[in-house]
Protein backbone atom coordinates (compact mmCIF):
# COMPACT_ATOMS: atom_id res chain seq x y z
CA UNK A 1 0.00 0.00 0.00
CA UNK A 2 2.79 2.37 0.97
CA UNK A 3 4.54 1.55 -2.25
CA UNK A 4 1.38 2.25 -4.23
CA UNK A 5 1.03 5.69 -2.57
CA UNK A 6 4.59 6.57 -3.44
CA UNK A 7 4.01 5.42 -6.99
CA UNK A 8 0.85 7.57 -7.31
CA UNK A 9 2.58 10.60 -5.78
CA UNK A 10 5.45 10.15 -8.14
CA UNK A 11 3.03 9.87 -11.03
CA UNK A 12 1.37 13.21 -10.17
CA UNK A 13 4.69 14.99 -9.78
CA UNK A 14 5.87 13.53 -13.02
CA UNK A 15 2.70 14.44 -14.89
CA UNK A 16 3.06 18.08 -13.80
CA UNK A 17 6.43 18.37 -15.38
CA UNK A 18 6.32 15.82 -18.16
CA UNK A 19 4.65 18.11 -20.71
CA UNK A 20 7.28 20.79 -20.34
CA UNK A 21 10.00 18.22 -20.51
CA UNK A 22 8.47 16.10 -23.23
CA UNK A 23 10.93 17.67 -25.60
CA UNK A 24 14.61 18.30 -25.29
CA UNK A 25 15.64 21.77 -26.43
CA UNK A 26 16.13 21.91 -30.21
CA UNK A 27 14.96 18.33 -30.56
CA UNK A 28 13.19 17.49 -33.80
CA UNK A 29 9.65 16.09 -33.70
CA UNK A 30 7.79 14.55 -36.61
CA UNK A 31 4.10 15.42 -36.45
CA UNK A 32 1.30 12.99 -37.42
CA UNK A 33 1.23 14.83 -40.76
CA UNK A 34 4.88 13.81 -41.21
CA UNK A 35 6.14 17.38 -40.93
CA UNK A 36 9.31 17.96 -38.96
CA UNK A 37 9.21 20.58 -36.22
CA UNK A 38 11.88 21.76 -33.80
CA UNK A 39 11.23 22.37 -30.12
CA UNK A 40 12.44 25.77 -28.93
CA UNK A 41 12.51 26.12 -25.14
CA UNK A 42 11.72 29.85 -25.02
CA UNK A 43 13.64 32.51 -23.17
CA UNK A 44 14.61 36.14 -23.12
CA UNK A 45 16.41 37.72 -26.05
CA UNK A 46 17.21 41.11 -27.55
CA UNK A 47 14.61 41.83 -30.23
CA UNK A 48 15.25 44.47 -32.88
CA UNK A 49 18.48 46.26 -33.63
CA UNK A 50 19.99 49.49 -32.41
CA UNK A 51 21.56 49.92 -35.86
CA UNK A 52 18.47 49.01 -37.87
CA UNK A 53 15.56 50.97 -39.31
CA UNK A 54 13.23 53.15 -37.23
CA UNK A 55 10.79 50.28 -36.70
CA UNK A 56 13.49 47.96 -35.30
CA UNK A 57 14.03 49.57 -31.89
CA UNK A 58 16.08 47.19 -29.74
CA UNK A 59 14.32 45.84 -26.62
CA UNK A 60 14.25 42.73 -24.42
CA UNK A 61 11.51 40.17 -25.02
CA UNK A 62 10.63 36.85 -23.41
CA UNK A 63 8.82 34.12 -25.29
CA UNK A 64 7.48 30.80 -24.04
CA UNK A 65 8.37 27.36 -25.41
CA UNK A 66 6.97 26.30 -28.78
CA UNK A 67 7.46 23.97 -31.71
CA UNK A 68 8.29 25.50 -35.08
CA UNK A 69 8.44 23.99 -38.56
CA UNK A 70 11.97 23.07 -39.51
CA UNK A 71 11.20 24.21 -43.09
CA UNK A 72 8.93 26.67 -44.81
CA UNK A 73 5.61 25.04 -45.74
CA UNK A 74 6.14 23.22 -49.01
CA UNK A 75 3.87 23.13 -52.04
CA UNK A 76 3.37 19.40 -51.45
CA UNK A 77 2.12 20.03 -47.94
CA UNK A 78 -0.07 22.95 -48.99
CA UNK A 79 -1.59 20.85 -51.76
CA UNK A 80 -2.23 18.01 -49.30
CA UNK A 81 -4.20 20.14 -46.84
CA UNK A 82 -5.74 22.75 -49.13
CA UNK A 83 -6.25 20.81 -52.35
CA UNK A 84 -4.62 23.55 -54.45
CA UNK A 85 -1.25 25.07 -55.17
CA UNK A 86 -1.18 28.82 -55.87
CA UNK A 87 2.59 28.92 -56.47
CA UNK A 88 4.16 30.43 -59.55
CA UNK A 89 7.30 28.29 -59.64
CA UNK A 90 5.92 24.78 -59.24
CA UNK A 91 7.91 22.07 -57.46
CA UNK A 92 6.63 19.85 -54.64
CA UNK A 93 9.61 20.64 -52.42
CA UNK A 94 9.61 24.36 -53.08
CA UNK A 95 8.03 26.63 -50.50
CA UNK A 96 4.46 27.49 -51.33
CA UNK A 97 4.28 31.09 -52.56
CA UNK A 98 1.69 33.56 -53.73
CA UNK A 99 -0.18 32.85 -50.50
CA UNK A 100 -2.04 35.55 -48.66
CA UNK A 101 -1.97 35.77 -44.88
CA UNK A 102 -5.57 34.61 -44.98
CA UNK A 103 -4.53 31.56 -47.03
CA UNK A 104 -1.77 30.79 -44.55
CA UNK A 105 -4.11 30.77 -41.56
CA UNK A 106 -6.59 28.59 -43.46
CA UNK A 107 -3.75 26.13 -43.94
CA UNK A 108 -2.95 26.28 -40.21
CA UNK A 109 -6.53 25.39 -39.37
CA UNK A 110 -6.69 22.61 -41.96
CA UNK A 111 -3.47 21.09 -40.61
CA UNK A 112 -4.79 21.34 -37.05
CA UNK A 113 -8.05 19.62 -37.98
CA UNK A 114 -6.22 16.86 -39.85
CA UNK A 115 -4.38 16.03 -36.62
CA UNK A 116 -7.44 16.33 -34.37
CA UNK A 117 -6.21 19.56 -32.79
CA UNK A 118 -8.22 22.63 -31.87
CA UNK A 119 -7.84 25.17 -34.73
CA UNK A 120 -6.42 28.52 -33.63
CA UNK A 121 -8.09 30.83 -36.14
CA UNK A 122 -11.62 32.13 -36.31
CA UNK A 123 -12.09 32.50 -40.06
CA UNK A 124 -14.96 34.94 -39.59
CA UNK A 125 -13.05 37.47 -37.50
CA UNK A 126 -9.53 36.40 -38.58
CA UNK A 127 -8.45 36.42 -34.94
CA UNK A 128 -6.12 33.91 -33.33
CA UNK A 129 -7.09 31.96 -30.21
CA UNK A 130 -3.70 31.55 -28.61
CA UNK A 131 -5.15 29.16 -26.04
CA UNK A 132 -5.97 26.58 -28.73
CA UNK A 133 -3.55 23.69 -29.20
CA UNK A 134 -3.50 23.76 -33.00
CA UNK A 135 -1.08 25.23 -35.48
CA UNK A 136 -0.76 28.96 -36.05
CA UNK A 137 1.62 31.48 -37.56
CA UNK A 138 4.48 32.55 -35.30
CA UNK A 139 4.23 35.88 -33.53
CA UNK A 140 6.84 38.32 -34.73
CA UNK A 141 8.74 37.81 -31.48
CA UNK A 142 8.70 34.00 -31.83
CA UNK A 143 9.94 34.31 -35.39
CA UNK A 144 12.85 36.54 -34.45
CA UNK A 145 13.71 34.40 -31.42
CA UNK A 146 13.85 31.36 -33.73
CA UNK A 147 15.86 33.17 -36.41
CA UNK A 148 18.40 34.59 -33.99
CA UNK A 149 19.02 31.18 -32.41
CA UNK A 150 20.60 32.74 -29.35
CA UNK A 151 22.69 35.30 -31.24
CA UNK A 152 22.67 39.09 -30.98
CA UNK A 153 24.30 39.90 -34.32
CA UNK A 154 22.63 41.09 -37.55
CA UNK A 155 22.61 37.51 -38.83
CA UNK A 156 22.84 34.33 -36.78
CA UNK A 157 26.32 33.79 -38.24
CA UNK A 158 27.67 37.26 -37.46
CA UNK A 159 27.39 40.88 -38.50
CA UNK A 160 28.90 40.50 -41.95
CA UNK A 161 26.75 39.25 -44.82
CA UNK A 162 29.68 37.25 -46.26
CA UNK A 163 28.36 33.85 -45.18
CA UNK A 164 24.77 34.50 -46.19
CA UNK A 165 25.17 32.44 -49.36
CA UNK A 166 25.65 29.30 -47.27
CA UNK A 167 22.39 29.78 -45.39
CA UNK A 168 19.97 31.54 -47.71
CA UNK A 169 18.56 31.76 -51.22
CA UNK A 170 18.71 35.49 -51.82
CA UNK A 171 19.14 37.86 -54.73
CA UNK A 172 22.84 37.34 -55.38
CA UNK A 173 22.57 33.62 -55.96
CA UNK A 174 18.93 32.50 -56.24
CA UNK A 175 18.82 33.07 -60.02
CA UNK A 176 15.50 34.82 -59.82
CA UNK A 177 13.42 32.04 -58.31
CA UNK A 178 12.62 30.22 -55.06
CA UNK A 179 14.31 26.88 -54.40
CA UNK A 180 13.43 23.60 -52.65
CA UNK A 181 13.34 24.03 -48.89
CA UNK A 182 16.26 22.80 -46.79
CA UNK A 183 18.83 23.09 -49.56
CA UNK A 184 20.86 25.71 -47.69
CA UNK A 185 22.49 25.19 -44.29
CA UNK A 186 20.34 25.38 -41.16
CA UNK A 187 20.72 27.95 -38.39
CA UNK A 188 22.27 26.85 -35.05
CA UNK A 189 18.87 25.55 -33.88
CA UNK A 190 18.34 23.43 -36.97
CA UNK A 191 15.90 25.68 -38.83
CA UNK A 192 16.33 26.06 -42.59
CA UNK A 193 15.57 29.07 -44.80
CA UNK A 194 14.98 31.49 -41.94
CA UNK A 195 16.68 33.93 -44.28
CA UNK A 196 15.68 34.14 -47.94
CA UNK A 197 13.67 31.81 -50.20
CA UNK A 198 10.24 33.30 -49.32
CA UNK A 199 9.14 35.99 -46.88
CA UNK A 200 7.34 34.37 -43.96
CA UNK A 201 4.00 35.61 -42.71
CA UNK A 202 3.76 36.26 -38.97
CA UNK A 203 0.57 36.42 -36.97
CA UNK A 204 1.05 40.05 -35.85
CA UNK A 205 -0.32 43.22 -37.34
CA UNK A 206 2.48 45.56 -38.30
CA UNK A 207 2.96 48.70 -36.25
CA UNK A 208 5.90 50.93 -37.04
CA UNK A 209 6.18 52.03 -33.40
CA UNK A 210 4.92 48.83 -31.79
CA UNK A 211 8.28 48.06 -30.18
CA UNK A 212 8.05 51.27 -28.15
CA UNK A 213 5.13 50.06 -26.07
CA UNK A 214 4.99 46.28 -26.65
CA UNK A 215 4.82 43.99 -23.60
CA UNK A 216 8.06 42.38 -22.53
CA UNK A 217 6.51 38.91 -22.26
CA UNK A 218 5.03 37.13 -25.29
CA UNK A 219 4.15 40.21 -27.38
CA UNK A 220 1.44 39.43 -29.89
CA UNK A 221 1.44 42.58 -31.99
CA UNK A 222 -1.00 45.50 -32.18
CA UNK A 223 -4.64 44.56 -31.66
CA UNK A 224 -5.62 45.98 -35.03
CA UNK A 225 -4.03 47.21 -38.19
CA UNK A 226 -4.07 47.18 -41.99
CA UNK A 227 -0.94 45.13 -42.63
CA UNK A 228 0.53 41.89 -41.34
CA UNK A 229 4.22 41.33 -40.61
CA UNK A 230 6.52 39.38 -42.93
CA UNK A 231 10.03 38.32 -41.94
CA UNK A 232 13.25 36.82 -43.26
CA UNK A 233 13.62 38.17 -46.79
CA UNK A 234 13.17 36.19 -49.97
CA UNK A 235 14.91 34.93 -53.10
CA UNK A 236 14.93 38.43 -54.57
CA UNK A 237 16.03 40.25 -51.42
CA UNK A 238 19.23 42.09 -50.77
CA UNK A 239 21.28 40.88 -47.77
CA UNK A 240 20.00 43.78 -45.67
CA UNK A 241 16.38 42.59 -45.99
CA UNK A 242 17.42 39.15 -44.70
CA UNK A 243 18.68 40.43 -41.33
CA UNK A 244 17.12 38.82 -38.24
CA UNK A 245 15.51 42.07 -37.14
CA UNK A 246 14.35 43.38 -40.54
CA UNK A 247 10.59 43.99 -40.64
CA UNK A 248 8.37 43.94 -43.68
CA UNK A 249 4.60 44.06 -44.09
CA UNK A 250 1.76 43.47 -46.51
CA UNK A 251 -2.03 43.49 -46.53
CA UNK A 252 -3.35 40.17 -45.19
CA UNK A 253 -5.76 39.49 -48.04
CA UNK A 254 -4.80 40.64 -51.49
CA UNK A 255 -7.26 43.21 -52.67
CA UNK A 256 -6.13 42.48 -56.17
CA UNK A 257 -4.61 39.56 -58.08
CA UNK A 258 -1.83 41.92 -59.20
CA UNK A 259 -0.59 42.00 -55.62
CA UNK A 260 -0.16 38.22 -55.41
CA UNK A 261 3.58 38.20 -55.44
CA UNK A 262 5.63 35.04 -55.63
CA UNK A 263 7.68 35.93 -52.59
CA UNK A 264 5.25 35.33 -49.73
CA UNK A 265 5.19 32.02 -47.86
CA UNK A 266 5.12 30.91 -44.23
CA UNK A 267 5.91 28.28 -41.60
CA UNK A 268 3.81 27.21 -38.62
CA UNK A 269 4.31 27.02 -34.88
CA UNK A 270 2.54 24.96 -32.26
CA UNK A 271 2.31 25.93 -28.61
CA UNK A 272 3.85 23.76 -25.91
CA UNK A 273 2.34 24.20 -22.47
CA UNK A 274 3.72 23.35 -19.07
Amino acid at each position, binding site marked *: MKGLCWTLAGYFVMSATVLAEAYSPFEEQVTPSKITMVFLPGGTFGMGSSEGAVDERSHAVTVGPFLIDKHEVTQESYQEFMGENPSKVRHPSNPVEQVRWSDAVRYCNARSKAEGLDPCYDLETWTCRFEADGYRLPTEAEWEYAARAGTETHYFFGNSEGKLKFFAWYKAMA*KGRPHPVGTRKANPWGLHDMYGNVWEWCNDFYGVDYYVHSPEKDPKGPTEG*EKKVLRGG*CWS*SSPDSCRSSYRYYEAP*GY*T*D*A*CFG*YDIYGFRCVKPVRK
Partner: protein
Amino acid sequence: MAKDLSQSNAIQLTLKEWAVVGTTLAFMYAVCPVLWSHLETWQPTPSYRIPYASSHDYWQVERYWDWAGRCEGCLVVGDSVVWGEYVSPPDTLSAQMQQLTGKPFLNMGLNGSHPACMAGLIQWYGKNVRGKDVLLHFNPLWMSSSRHDLTESKEFRFNHPKLVPQFFPRIPCYKESLENKIGIVAQRFFWPSRWLAHLASVYFDELDLGSWIREHPTENPLSQIGFQLPVPEEEPRHPQRPWTESGVAVTSFDWVVPSESIQWRLFQRSVDILEDRGNRVFVLVGPFNVHMLAQDSTEGYERILEEATSWLERREISYLVASPLPKDCYGDASHPLPEGYRQLAREVLSAMEAQRMGGMG
Protein backbone atom coordinates in the same frame (compact mmCIF):
# COMPACT_ATOMS: atom_id res chain seq x y z
CA MET B 1 61.43 42.99 -77.36
CA ALA B 2 59.05 41.93 -80.17
CA LYS B 3 58.09 38.23 -80.11
CA ASP B 4 58.69 36.04 -83.15
CA LEU B 5 55.13 34.99 -84.02
CA SER B 6 56.28 32.74 -86.89
CA GLN B 7 57.32 30.15 -84.27
CA SER B 8 54.04 30.37 -82.41
CA ASN B 9 50.67 28.64 -82.86
CA ALA B 10 48.92 31.99 -82.73
CA ILE B 11 46.89 33.00 -85.77
CA GLN B 12 47.46 36.53 -86.88
CA LEU B 13 44.66 37.88 -89.04
CA THR B 14 45.24 40.36 -91.77
CA LEU B 15 43.07 43.42 -92.06
CA LYS B 16 41.12 41.73 -94.85
CA GLU B 17 40.55 38.62 -92.73
CA TRP B 18 39.36 40.77 -89.86
CA ALA B 19 36.89 42.38 -92.26
CA VAL B 20 35.59 38.92 -93.22
CA VAL B 21 35.18 37.96 -89.56
CA GLY B 22 33.39 41.22 -88.85
CA THR B 23 31.07 40.83 -91.83
CA THR B 24 30.27 37.23 -90.90
CA LEU B 25 29.45 38.20 -87.32
CA ALA B 26 27.32 41.12 -88.50
CA PHE B 27 25.49 38.80 -90.91
CA MET B 28 24.87 36.25 -88.16
CA TYR B 29 23.73 39.01 -85.81
CA ALA B 30 21.18 40.19 -88.36
CA VAL B 31 20.06 36.84 -89.75
CA CYS B 32 20.02 34.46 -86.79
CA PRO B 33 16.96 35.96 -85.06
CA VAL B 34 15.04 35.76 -88.34
CA LEU B 35 16.12 32.15 -88.90
CA TRP B 36 15.23 31.18 -85.35
CA SER B 37 11.83 32.81 -85.67
CA HIS B 38 11.11 30.59 -88.66
CA LEU B 39 12.18 27.47 -86.82
CA GLU B 40 9.88 27.98 -83.83
CA THR B 41 6.26 27.18 -84.61
CA TRP B 42 3.98 30.01 -83.59
CA GLN B 43 0.57 30.92 -84.95
CA PRO B 44 -1.34 33.55 -82.99
CA THR B 45 -5.12 33.20 -83.12
CA PRO B 46 -7.48 36.23 -83.04
CA SER B 47 -7.92 35.86 -79.27
CA TYR B 48 -4.21 35.19 -78.65
CA ARG B 49 -2.64 36.55 -75.50
CA ILE B 50 0.92 36.18 -74.32
CA PRO B 51 0.95 32.95 -72.29
CA TYR B 52 1.38 33.43 -68.56
CA ALA B 53 4.50 31.26 -68.75
CA SER B 54 6.03 33.60 -71.33
CA SER B 55 5.36 36.82 -69.42
CA HIS B 56 9.07 37.39 -68.79
CA ASP B 57 10.27 36.11 -72.15
CA TYR B 58 10.94 39.49 -73.74
CA TRP B 59 12.28 37.91 -76.94
CA GLN B 60 8.85 36.39 -77.51
CA VAL B 61 7.05 39.51 -76.30
CA GLU B 62 8.97 41.61 -78.83
CA ARG B 63 8.16 39.09 -81.54
CA TYR B 64 4.45 39.38 -80.72
CA TRP B 65 4.58 43.17 -80.77
CA ASP B 66 6.38 43.05 -84.14
CA TRP B 67 3.66 40.73 -85.47
CA ALA B 68 0.92 42.96 -84.08
CA GLY B 69 2.55 45.98 -85.69
CA ARG B 70 2.12 44.33 -89.08
CA CYS B 71 -1.49 43.25 -88.45
CA GLU B 72 -4.68 45.10 -89.21
CA GLY B 73 -6.68 46.20 -86.21
CA CYS B 74 -6.55 48.05 -82.94
CA LEU B 75 -4.01 47.11 -80.27
CA VAL B 76 -5.37 46.85 -76.74
CA VAL B 77 -2.42 47.53 -74.43
CA GLY B 78 -2.28 47.23 -70.66
CA ASP B 79 -1.69 45.10 -67.59
CA SER B 80 -3.51 41.97 -66.41
CA VAL B 81 -6.87 43.73 -66.72
CA VAL B 82 -6.35 43.72 -70.48
CA TRP B 83 -4.66 40.31 -70.35
CA GLY B 84 -7.70 38.89 -68.51
CA GLU B 85 -6.71 37.55 -65.09
CA TYR B 86 -10.06 35.94 -64.25
CA VAL B 87 -11.18 34.95 -67.74
CA SER B 88 -10.22 32.61 -70.54
CA PRO B 89 -8.93 34.10 -73.85
CA PRO B 90 -12.35 34.40 -75.59
CA ASP B 91 -13.72 36.47 -72.67
CA THR B 92 -11.04 39.16 -72.49
CA LEU B 93 -11.80 42.80 -73.30
CA SER B 94 -10.19 42.65 -76.76
CA ALA B 95 -11.90 39.35 -77.62
CA GLN B 96 -15.29 40.71 -76.54
CA MET B 97 -14.77 43.84 -78.65
CA GLN B 98 -13.85 41.62 -81.57
CA GLN B 99 -16.96 39.50 -81.13
CA LEU B 100 -19.20 42.57 -80.92
CA THR B 101 -17.78 44.27 -84.03
CA GLY B 102 -16.23 41.53 -86.16
CA LYS B 103 -13.15 43.77 -86.37
CA PRO B 104 -9.70 42.79 -85.07
CA PHE B 105 -8.74 43.93 -81.59
CA LEU B 106 -5.44 42.42 -80.43
CA ASN B 107 -4.79 41.55 -76.80
CA MET B 108 -1.44 43.17 -75.98
CA GLY B 109 -1.87 42.73 -72.23
CA LEU B 110 1.15 41.49 -70.29
CA ASN B 111 0.51 39.61 -67.10
CA GLY B 112 2.17 41.19 -64.09
CA SER B 113 2.83 44.46 -65.86
CA HIS B 114 2.20 47.96 -64.52
CA PRO B 115 2.64 51.43 -66.03
CA ALA B 116 6.32 51.73 -65.08
CA CYS B 117 7.26 48.58 -66.95
CA MET B 118 4.77 49.16 -69.78
CA ALA B 119 6.66 52.33 -70.69
CA GLY B 120 9.83 50.24 -71.04
CA LEU B 121 8.06 47.52 -72.98
CA ILE B 122 6.68 50.01 -75.49
CA GLN B 123 9.95 51.89 -75.73
CA TRP B 124 12.25 48.91 -76.21
CA TYR B 125 10.20 46.09 -77.63
CA GLY B 126 7.30 47.85 -79.32
CA LYS B 127 9.38 49.83 -81.80
CA ASN B 128 7.54 48.46 -84.80
CA VAL B 129 4.11 49.52 -83.63
CA ARG B 130 3.63 52.64 -85.71
CA GLY B 131 0.65 54.37 -87.22
CA LYS B 132 -1.81 52.12 -85.35
CA ASP B 133 -4.92 52.70 -83.31
CA VAL B 134 -3.95 51.87 -79.72
CA LEU B 135 -6.35 51.46 -76.83
CA LEU B 136 -4.11 52.06 -73.80
CA HIS B 137 -5.47 51.01 -70.44
CA PHE B 138 -4.66 52.94 -67.27
CA ASN B 139 -5.28 51.06 -64.04
CA PRO B 140 -5.47 53.43 -61.02
CA LEU B 141 -4.69 50.41 -58.82
CA TRP B 142 -0.98 51.11 -59.27
CA MET B 143 -1.39 54.39 -57.40
CA SER B 144 -3.28 52.83 -54.50
CA SER B 145 -0.23 52.82 -52.20
CA SER B 146 3.30 54.15 -52.20
CA ARG B 147 4.54 50.54 -52.33
CA HIS B 148 2.76 49.73 -55.59
CA ASP B 149 3.57 53.16 -56.92
CA LEU B 150 7.21 52.12 -56.33
CA THR B 151 7.90 55.28 -54.33
CA GLU B 152 8.41 53.50 -50.99
CA SER B 153 12.01 53.39 -49.85
CA LYS B 154 11.90 49.83 -48.44
CA GLU B 155 13.11 47.26 -50.93
CA PHE B 156 10.18 45.78 -52.84
CA ARG B 157 10.16 43.05 -55.45
CA PHE B 158 7.74 44.27 -58.07
CA ASN B 159 7.05 42.51 -61.35
CA HIS B 160 9.06 43.01 -64.54
CA PRO B 161 12.03 44.90 -63.02
CA LYS B 162 13.91 44.48 -66.31
CA LEU B 163 11.42 46.75 -68.05
CA VAL B 164 11.47 49.69 -65.66
CA PRO B 165 13.90 52.62 -65.95
CA GLN B 166 17.16 51.43 -64.43
CA PHE B 167 18.58 54.86 -63.61
CA PHE B 168 16.15 57.68 -64.27
CA PRO B 169 13.66 58.37 -62.85
CA ARG B 170 15.12 56.73 -59.77
CA ILE B 171 12.83 54.08 -58.28
CA PRO B 172 13.39 54.16 -54.50
CA CYS B 173 12.29 50.57 -53.77
CA TYR B 174 14.42 49.12 -56.58
CA LYS B 175 17.72 48.06 -55.01
CA GLU B 176 19.39 46.26 -57.90
CA SER B 177 23.20 46.41 -58.09
CA LEU B 178 24.86 48.74 -60.60
CA GLU B 179 26.40 45.73 -62.36
CA ASN B 180 23.01 44.08 -62.88
CA LYS B 181 21.40 47.33 -63.99
CA ILE B 182 24.05 47.74 -66.66
CA GLY B 183 23.44 44.12 -67.72
CA ILE B 184 19.70 44.78 -68.00
CA VAL B 185 20.26 47.87 -70.12
CA ALA B 186 22.68 45.94 -72.34
CA GLN B 187 20.05 43.22 -72.88
CA ARG B 188 17.73 45.80 -74.43
CA PHE B 189 20.25 46.51 -77.17
CA PHE B 190 21.85 43.08 -77.61
CA TRP B 191 19.42 40.46 -78.91
CA PRO B 192 21.60 37.37 -78.25
CA SER B 193 21.19 38.07 -74.56
CA ARG B 194 17.38 38.13 -74.91
CA TRP B 195 17.52 35.05 -77.11
CA LEU B 196 19.43 33.10 -74.44
CA ALA B 197 16.84 34.22 -71.87
CA HIS B 198 14.16 33.03 -74.30
CA LEU B 199 15.78 29.58 -74.58
CA ALA B 200 16.01 29.39 -70.80
CA SER B 201 12.35 30.35 -70.45
CA VAL B 202 10.96 27.98 -73.07
CA TYR B 203 13.23 24.95 -72.84
CA PHE B 204 15.34 25.04 -69.67
CA ASP B 205 12.96 25.71 -66.77
CA GLU B 206 14.06 29.37 -66.57
CA LEU B 207 17.63 28.22 -65.84
CA ASP B 208 20.74 29.25 -67.72
CA LEU B 209 22.39 26.40 -69.62
CA GLY B 210 25.11 25.82 -67.02
CA SER B 211 22.63 25.57 -64.16
CA TRP B 212 20.32 23.32 -66.19
CA ILE B 213 23.17 20.91 -66.98
CA ARG B 214 24.13 20.80 -63.31
CA GLU B 215 20.52 19.92 -62.41
CA HIS B 216 20.15 17.40 -65.28
CA PRO B 217 23.64 15.89 -65.66
CA THR B 218 22.50 12.86 -67.66
CA GLU B 219 20.30 14.67 -70.18
CA ASN B 220 21.21 16.20 -73.51
CA PRO B 221 20.29 19.90 -73.50
CA LEU B 222 19.84 19.94 -77.29
CA SER B 223 17.05 17.37 -76.98
CA GLN B 224 15.10 19.90 -74.92
CA ILE B 225 14.75 22.27 -77.85
CA GLY B 226 11.53 21.19 -79.52
CA PHE B 227 10.80 24.44 -81.38
CA GLN B 228 7.36 24.53 -79.79
CA LEU B 229 6.41 27.71 -77.99
CA PRO B 230 4.05 27.75 -75.01
CA VAL B 231 0.43 28.25 -76.01
CA PRO B 232 -1.94 30.55 -74.09
CA GLU B 233 -3.61 28.82 -71.18
CA GLU B 234 -7.29 28.15 -71.89
CA GLU B 235 -8.39 28.21 -68.27
CA PRO B 236 -8.73 31.38 -66.19
CA ARG B 237 -5.93 31.81 -63.65
CA HIS B 238 -8.36 32.24 -60.77
CA PRO B 239 -11.84 30.97 -59.92
CA GLN B 240 -14.48 33.21 -61.50
CA ARG B 241 -16.17 34.32 -58.31
CA PRO B 242 -17.00 37.88 -57.27
CA TRP B 243 -14.64 39.55 -54.79
CA THR B 244 -17.45 39.62 -52.24
CA GLU B 245 -17.27 35.82 -52.03
CA SER B 246 -13.48 35.73 -51.60
CA GLY B 247 -13.35 37.20 -48.10
CA VAL B 248 -11.97 40.53 -49.35
CA ALA B 249 -13.32 43.41 -47.31
CA VAL B 250 -13.98 47.03 -48.15
CA THR B 251 -10.51 48.57 -48.08
CA SER B 252 -8.94 51.86 -47.24
CA PHE B 253 -6.34 52.69 -49.91
CA ASP B 254 -3.48 55.11 -49.29
CA TRP B 255 -3.63 56.76 -52.71
CA VAL B 256 -0.53 58.60 -53.78
CA VAL B 257 -0.60 62.16 -55.01
CA PRO B 258 -0.48 62.13 -58.84
CA SER B 259 2.21 64.81 -59.05
CA GLU B 260 4.53 62.60 -56.97
CA SER B 261 3.62 59.29 -58.59
CA ILE B 262 6.19 57.28 -60.53
CA GLN B 263 3.52 55.07 -62.11
CA TRP B 264 1.55 58.06 -63.40
CA ARG B 265 4.68 59.74 -64.72
CA LEU B 266 5.68 56.61 -66.63
CA PHE B 267 2.16 56.09 -67.93
CA GLN B 268 2.46 59.57 -69.43
CA ARG B 269 5.73 58.47 -70.99
CA SER B 270 3.96 55.50 -72.64
CA VAL B 271 1.44 57.86 -74.21
CA ASP B 272 4.24 60.12 -75.44
CA ILE B 273 6.20 57.27 -77.03
CA LEU B 274 3.15 55.83 -78.76
CA GLU B 275 2.16 59.23 -80.13
CA ASP B 276 5.71 60.01 -81.23
CA ARG B 277 5.53 56.86 -83.35
CA GLY B 278 2.45 58.06 -85.13
CA ASN B 279 -0.08 55.94 -83.25
CA ARG B 280 -3.55 57.24 -82.41
CA VAL B 281 -4.00 56.66 -78.69
CA PHE B 282 -7.28 56.18 -76.87
CA VAL B 283 -6.94 55.90 -73.08
CA LEU B 284 -9.27 53.76 -71.01
CA VAL B 285 -9.22 54.67 -67.31
CA GLY B 286 -10.50 51.94 -65.00
CA PRO B 287 -12.99 50.51 -64.29
CA PHE B 288 -11.66 50.38 -60.71
CA ASN B 289 -13.86 48.54 -58.24
CA VAL B 290 -15.24 51.54 -56.36
CA HIS B 291 -17.47 49.21 -54.32
CA MET B 292 -14.32 48.11 -52.49
CA LEU B 293 -13.34 51.68 -51.57
CA ALA B 294 -13.73 52.65 -47.94
CA GLN B 295 -15.32 56.03 -47.36
CA ASP B 296 -12.06 57.63 -46.29
CA SER B 297 -10.25 56.73 -49.51
CA THR B 298 -12.72 57.93 -52.14
CA GLU B 299 -11.29 61.44 -52.10
CA GLY B 300 -7.80 60.28 -53.04
CA TYR B 301 -9.21 58.13 -55.82
CA GLU B 302 -11.25 61.01 -57.26
CA ARG B 303 -8.20 63.27 -57.16
CA ILE B 304 -6.34 60.76 -59.34
CA LEU B 305 -9.20 60.64 -61.84
CA GLU B 306 -9.34 64.44 -61.97
CA GLU B 307 -5.61 64.72 -62.54
CA ALA B 308 -5.64 61.99 -65.19
CA THR B 309 -8.55 63.42 -67.15
CA SER B 310 -7.30 66.99 -67.03
CA TRP B 311 -3.89 65.86 -68.34
CA LEU B 312 -5.52 63.85 -71.13
CA GLU B 313 -7.69 66.82 -72.07
CA ARG B 314 -4.72 69.19 -72.10
CA ARG B 315 -2.96 66.78 -74.42
CA GLU B 316 -6.11 66.35 -76.54
CA ILE B 317 -6.04 62.60 -76.14
CA SER B 318 -9.32 60.71 -76.47
CA TYR B 319 -10.25 58.86 -73.31
CA LEU B 320 -12.99 57.15 -71.41
CA VAL B 321 -13.31 56.91 -67.64
CA ALA B 322 -15.16 53.60 -67.52
CA SER B 323 -18.41 53.57 -65.57
CA PRO B 324 -18.25 51.44 -62.45
CA LEU B 325 -19.45 47.89 -63.14
CA PRO B 326 -22.04 46.19 -60.92
CA LYS B 327 -20.55 44.91 -57.66
CA ASP B 328 -20.63 41.24 -58.63
CA CYS B 329 -18.84 41.86 -61.96
CA TYR B 330 -15.46 42.29 -60.25
CA GLY B 331 -13.09 39.49 -59.22
CA ASP B 332 -11.07 41.91 -57.09
CA ALA B 333 -10.12 45.59 -56.94
CA SER B 334 -9.50 46.05 -60.65
CA HIS B 335 -10.23 42.87 -62.64
CA PRO B 336 -13.67 42.33 -64.18
CA LEU B 337 -15.29 38.93 -64.50
CA PRO B 338 -16.65 37.80 -67.93
CA GLU B 339 -19.93 39.74 -67.64
CA GLY B 340 -17.96 42.80 -66.56
CA TYR B 341 -15.82 42.59 -69.69
CA ARG B 342 -18.96 42.29 -71.83
CA GLN B 343 -20.37 45.49 -70.36
CA LEU B 344 -17.03 47.26 -70.55
CA ALA B 345 -16.51 46.26 -74.19
CA ARG B 346 -19.84 47.81 -75.19
CA GLU B 347 -19.05 51.06 -73.39
CA VAL B 348 -15.53 51.30 -74.84
CA LEU B 349 -16.72 50.56 -78.37
CA SER B 350 -19.35 53.24 -78.10
CA ALA B 351 -16.73 55.78 -76.95
CA MET B 352 -14.25 54.75 -79.65
CA GLU B 353 -16.95 54.96 -82.28
CA ALA B 354 -17.53 58.57 -81.32
CA GLN B 355 -13.83 59.19 -81.95
CA ARG B 356 -13.83 57.09 -85.15
CA MET B 357 -11.10 54.86 -83.74
CA GLY B 358 -10.41 51.13 -83.89
CA GLY B 359 -12.09 50.87 -87.29
CA MET B 360 -15.29 52.21 -85.74
CA GLY B 361 -17.47 54.97 -87.02
